[in-house]
């Protein structure tokens, strides 16, 4: 047990680890080829892992936020980050706004089955022409008799093909700037909702990523999630959880890669000794471990603040930025240490290398993080 975790977190960690190692990791190679199956959600729902920090009245376990961090950390043992990402979209990205902003009726209809793993969720923010710049999305929801009519297009949507429901951000008032966005909760079988294609990605290949279009899609009034016009602020809130869970997972993934590189460096010999005993490699590993420690402590600092009900945008942005950089640096250094075998498609390192590159792009690029931090620093 190490700060900031308590004994009950360690117990949870042990049980998640047992599940991940027994039921997920053995399938990693296969799922990497053809995406992971939907039963992962129902199984994790059965085990209670999709509702760790939600109240028991909705089927959750009533735990604290650090339980979510434990889940993200242990999911890295599944051997393919794409699977961990698909699950994280459910637990920490698409569904939290339902709990935070939803009505009791919406919670009954969507949050409860999400926690059970019966409904898979995706999150619709990014568009072909607007990603980091959320304010400039063009998907619009127009008020019509009895509901809303939505038109537009979303891209890079994790769980996009398999999802039963989408948490969507759309413009409800073109002229209102930050006050012109609203959130919706959409059933993906609504007429007008089309999965145009699934995208082929360089990494995170166990996850499915969709491009979705909405053509004159009618949704009832109660599809509106939270107050009209507050969508920009509400999705900004969502992004904090998304970034922090991404940071926690990616830095723990980096730690796994470091451990693999360390083990290899002790085993592989050149010039009569293990390569890890050559000072250049030893010091490279020391630097990797040091940077991982720094970034992980920053993640924990932010997580403790969230756990107390604070809203630490600054620390979360920093954690997202630093973990992304450190994770990428770590996998690349690891590839160097592994040499030719690291470059081989028969060996899992290249997968970690490809997977790790995404965290610097998804959930807000490095550049957006620096803009956020810099502005908060008064620059």
């Amino acid at each position: 047990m190490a700060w900031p975790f308590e004994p009950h977190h360690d117990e949870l960690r042990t049980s998640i680890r047992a599940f991940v190692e027994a039921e997920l990791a053995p399938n990693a190679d296969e799922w990497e080829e053809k995406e992971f199956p939907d039963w992962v959600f129902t199984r994790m729902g059965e085990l209670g892992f999709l509702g760790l920090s939600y109240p028991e009245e909705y089927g959750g376990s009533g735990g604290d936020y650090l339980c979510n961090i434990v889940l993200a950390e242990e999911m890295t043992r599944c051997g393919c980050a794409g699977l961990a990402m698909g699950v994280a979209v459910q637990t920490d990205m698409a569904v939290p706004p339902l709990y935070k902003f939803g009505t009791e009726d919406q919670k009954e209809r969507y949050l409860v089955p999400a926690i059970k793993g019966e409904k898979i969720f995706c999150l619709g923010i990014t568009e072909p022409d607007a990603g980091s710049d959320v304010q400039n999305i063009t998907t619009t929801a127009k008020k019509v008799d009895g509901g809303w009519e939505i038109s537009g297009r979303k891209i890079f949507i994790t769980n996009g093909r398999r999802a039963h429901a989408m948490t969507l951000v759309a413009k409800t008032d073109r002229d209102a700037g930050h006050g012109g966005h609203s959130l919706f909760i959409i059933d993906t079988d609504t007429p007008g909702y089309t999965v145009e294609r699934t995208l082929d990605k360089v990494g995170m290949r166990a996850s499915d990523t969709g491009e979705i279009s909405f053509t004159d899609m009618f949704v009832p009034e109660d599809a509106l999630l939270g107050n009209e016009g507050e969508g920009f602020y509400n999705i900004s809130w969502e992004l904090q959880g998304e970034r922090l869970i991404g940071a926690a997972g990616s830095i723990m993934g980096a730690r796994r890669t470091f451990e693999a590189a360390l083990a290899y460096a002790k085993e592989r010999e050149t010039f009569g000794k293990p390569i890890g005993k050559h000072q250049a490699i030893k010091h490279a590993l020391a630097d990797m471990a040091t940077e991982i420690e720094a970034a992980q402590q920053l993640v924990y600092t932010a997580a403790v603040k969230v756990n107390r009900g604070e809203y630490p945008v600054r620390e979360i942005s920093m954690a997202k930025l630093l973990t992304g950089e450190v994770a990428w640096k770590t996998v690349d250094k690891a590839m160097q240490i592994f040499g030719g075998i690291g470059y081989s498609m028969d060996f899992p390192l290249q997968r970690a290398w490809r997977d790790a590159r995404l965290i610097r792009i998804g959930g807000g690029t490095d550049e957006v993080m620096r803009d956020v931090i810099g502005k908060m620093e008064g620059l």
Partner: protein
Amino acid sequence: MRFATESRAVNDDIFSAEHEELRSSVRAFVSKELLPHAQEWEAAESFPKEVFKRVGELGFFGLKYDEAYGGSGPDYTADAVVTEEFSRCGSAGVSASLGGHKDLATLYISNFGGEEQKQRWLAPSIRGEIVGGLAVTEPDAGSDVAGIKTTARRDGSDWVINGSKTYITNGAWGDFIVVAAKTDPDAGHSGLTLFVVEAGTPGFEARRMRMLGWRTGQTGELSLSDVRIPDENRIGDEGSAFYAIMQNFAWERIIMSLGQVTGAQLTYDIAKNYALERHAFDRPIGKFQVWRHRFADMATRIEAGRAMTYNALRMFIAGENPIKEVAMAKLYTAELAFHVADECVQVHGGYGYMMEFPAQRAWRDSRLGPIGGGTSEIMREIIGRTYGL
């Protein structure tokens, strides 16, 4: 709630309300009695020794030491607070001198000295009446502690010490120096013993060294020729010095890390204030994206360095022996502080290069971090070793 930037300190599991009160009082002292003199002391390349007396009066040397010797401890957390606040004094030589006394020389007496030795050197040190230094490093042995050449030879009930020591903080004006010497040249790590040598002992000479940074510090080169001291000056058992030094490294490096993070933050603030003041092409240079992003990177690393340092401190206070975490914090924060200082010089442009601006001082002062207290290369060796490399 939306985009609130104010939040409570996350580390209140380390620092209690009493610690924060202590922080306020140390900060008040530093800003009233040290900071206003920093420029003048830097120009003079020295500071008055009476500062020790004043710090002693205020009780700031005694927080981790027992009440029996005039301390108010043991409370290492409180001592860490004092270190953080001393780092705000505006002159690295001053904070390092106070630290060399508080965390090096006296810590050995407290941890390994006998009752009489504590009354003789620790108690007046806590009062600030005498100033101490620690002498391990030699011209031919720094990081390689077991390789030191200074010898102590038994002669009846006395010891006779011969050798030289270098880069000794407070060495030039110290009233007593804790000296590591070889008592058994064939015993390797187990052949080193600690002794107290008092200034004025025949055969002991100290020469002040000029340094790139830390200019107010009285760093000295010591020569010991046939220095005769009684066995009462031996600290700890014969042959125990290496282990004592290794044991105290943890605290020494936590202290250095705390100072380096605080220093990096202060330098960052200087750089940022300038970047917001200075205009180019009709806007503050800090508002150009390239500088905004560089400041974001610095601020991020400072937070990370602080988080890892506090975690090492947390583990130390819990009674663990966080060798790895301490080495990581020391390595990371030393490199960080220098990086931030170099960026501070850069953002100041020509002014950054001028002796009248503080940027160059931070740059020179922080360069010692990756060298002193175990170089960055040694830290990487230690970290590698903890992983079995």
